[in-house]
């Protein structure tokens, strides 16, 4: 069960009409290391992870990632809202306009739709948690690319928050991995 909370996790205050940034931000919506990939990856791995600590963590971080999807889509929506066809074309969003006008869609900046092939699950807690830790680092790196490309101060502020969350999630997954490994070793000794 999920409950929707009618608010953003972090405020989004877009000042300018930076359409190029809107396009780049799609990588964190429907791209390989984006927030949607993260949410689905963690929530899907919960069922076969052995310890209660890791079950709780995958549930909670998976839920937080859904809130991050909402922050990213809010930024894309606000950056593109009211843009003319000419402006969209100039920012490389003409193809997006041709396919679906101004509608949002989980795809990467090149229009490649999101696919479950971006994620993996093994029912092997060590493999799964290492994938999760790698995913957090790849998302952190992606946010750093986006910060280099962004100019809007409001967008940069939200991107900095999201980057920082990747660092914290990496840390927590590392702790969950240590707990899982202790659990596996305890089982073997017994």
């Amino acid at each position, binding site marked *: 069960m999920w409950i*929707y909370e009618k608010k953003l996790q972090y405020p989004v205050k877009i000042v300018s009409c930076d359409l190029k940034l809107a396009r780049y931000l799609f990588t964190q919506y429907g791209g390989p290391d984006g927030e949607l990939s993260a949410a689905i990856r963690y929530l899907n791995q919960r069922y076969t992870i052995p310890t209660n600590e890791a079950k709780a963590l995958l549930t909670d971080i998976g839920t937080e990632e859904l809130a991050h999807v909402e922050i990213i889509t809010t930024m894309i929506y606000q950056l593109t809202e009211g843009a003319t066809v000419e402006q969209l074309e100039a920012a490389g969003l003409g193809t997006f306009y041709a396919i679906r006008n101004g509608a949002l869609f989980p795809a990467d900046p090149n229009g490649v739709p999101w696919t479950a092939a971006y994620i993996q699950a093994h029912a092997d807690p060590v493999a799964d948690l290492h994938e999760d830790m790698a995913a957090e680092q790849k998302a952190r790196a992606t946010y750093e690319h986006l910060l280099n490309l962004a100019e809007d101060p409001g967008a940069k502020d939200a991107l900095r928050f999201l980057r920082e969350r990747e660092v914290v999630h990496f840390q927590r997954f590392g702790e969950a991995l240590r707990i899982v490994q202790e659990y596996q070793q305890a089982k073997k000794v017994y």
Partner: protein
Amino acid sequence: MGHERVHLLKKIQEVEFAAVELQLFLDTHPQDQRALMEFNHYSRELMMLKQQFEMQYGPLLNFGFSPSQYPWRWIEGPWPWERQY
């Protein structure tokens, strides 16, 4: 009015962020009493702030977790992704 709403909302975002952060920490440190005390402190503060917000600006949560005044206030904008939000 808009300013006050945004101010109260920001306060909720701050307190809820502390609760999220502590929740993740507690998932891997379930026996940390100090973190648990802090979590419960923020949880109580969050409940009070949300109640205050909802009385003035309508429900924050769906599916029965927030009561509504008449008429059904859940449908009121602005929604979180909108510029006026």
